[in-house]
């Protein structure tokens, strides 16, 4: 079955508050969304809460999803991104700001895990292209924030994004061609 058709059937059930449809969509998209959320907030505990919040919002707001305006994943990605950015903007009073531990060296010794590593086609891009895509897609930066972060003019940053997307497209097309070639050989 076509992926979007399958999604649309699940979404139609979800609109009628079928919990199993939500669980099926969770099974399908939670890993991709968790990858985005975790790279944005860099905290597993917080990412877990935010992924849960994202799917609760999907459950509550599914009526506002319009399939003619885009794919379900794009809509869910926007919810995940905005939920995460809102959480990161809030001052978390529960987070300990002063170091009250006796062994001060312990925090220095334990390295903080880094979830920024990327995989797949993006890994094959030029470093500046990788960074541009990573900033806007996996870190939640706006274009305006991202070009300042990279320290390049806005126009240059936009070119980076366009070039990176073109290269991603070629990469995926080549993979498709390769797959087609393998199928032809097997046939």
């Amino acid at each position, binding site marked *: 079955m076509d992926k979007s058709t399958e999604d649309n059937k699940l979404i139609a059930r979800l609109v009628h508050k079928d919990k199993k449809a939500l669980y099926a969509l969770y099974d399908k998209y939670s890993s*991709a969304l968790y990858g985005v959320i975790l790279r944005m907030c860099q905290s597993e505990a917080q990412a877990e809460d935010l*992924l*849960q919040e994202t799917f609760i919002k999907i459950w509550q707001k599914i009526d506002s999803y319009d399939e003619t305006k885009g794919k379900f994943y794009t809509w869910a990605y926007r919810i995940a991104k905005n939920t995460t950015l809102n959480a990161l903007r809030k001052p978390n009073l529960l987070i300990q700001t002063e170091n009250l531990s006796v062994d001060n060296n312990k925090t220095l010794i334990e390295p903080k895990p880094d979830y920024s590593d990327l995989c797949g*086609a*993006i890994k094959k891009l030029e470093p500046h292209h990788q960074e541009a895509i990573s900033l806007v897609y996996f870190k939640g930066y706006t274009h305006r924030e991202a070009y300042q972060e990279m320290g390049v003019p806005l126009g240059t940053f*936009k070119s980076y994004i366009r070039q990176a997307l073109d290269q991603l*497209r070629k990469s995926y097309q080549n993979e498709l061609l390769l797959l087609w070639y393998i199928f032809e050989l097997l046939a």
Partner: protein
Amino acid sequence: MMDKKNIWEEGLLEKYLLDELSETERLSIEDALNKDKTLKAHFERLESDFERMAFENAIAPPSRIKSAIQHHLEKQYSTIFFSPTLLVAASLAFLFLLTTVLMYLRWQNAQDDLQTIQDQTLVLQERLNALEENYLSTNTLLKTINGPKTIPLVLHGNEMVPHARAVAYVNHDNKMVVVNAQGLPELPKDKTYQMWSDVEGEMINMGLLPTDQELVTLRYIEKAESLNITIEPAGGNDHPTVAQLISYVTL
């Protein structure tokens, strides 16, 4: 509508996908996508590429998150069904229903009681009317027999019924005869007492004399010379059975 060239150059499709646009810009892009198939196709490719990239960089979340979502949704539903507000509302509704049913039953009982009382009142009213009628009739008779112009006449039984006794009250002004026949002995069912007036030797029927009534009004006969009581077959006779004459009194 936004210029297609402007959309390309400004990277607005990417910004739209990443939800970076203002409300006005977003609506303009959606309008442009609806009208331009090339632009729409490009946006769909962009979506697919971003989605594919996201899946290439997917990280499996711990299974407890799905469990937490399931728990949240189940709890949410159970909260809806068993929320304190709903329970209070349900209790109030139940109490209201109970009160309504009780009130209805009490109203039904009251209706039944009222109907019974109305029936009893009707019976009592009928009995009262009968008593009043009886009282008026008796009162009239008593007034008549106690009146100064009423002549009481005692009829003693002859040798056939020596202990028999009847009293006749005769009022010539009112042309009325009332007899108390309770002093006569009881007869078999096929027999009855009958009273006759003797007018110039002819016995004229005055009526039957039931012994179970205190006062019996009989027909007044003009120029009667005597009153006579005979025993006749049940229902009375056209002519007196002289052999069964048990008493008489001269007027």
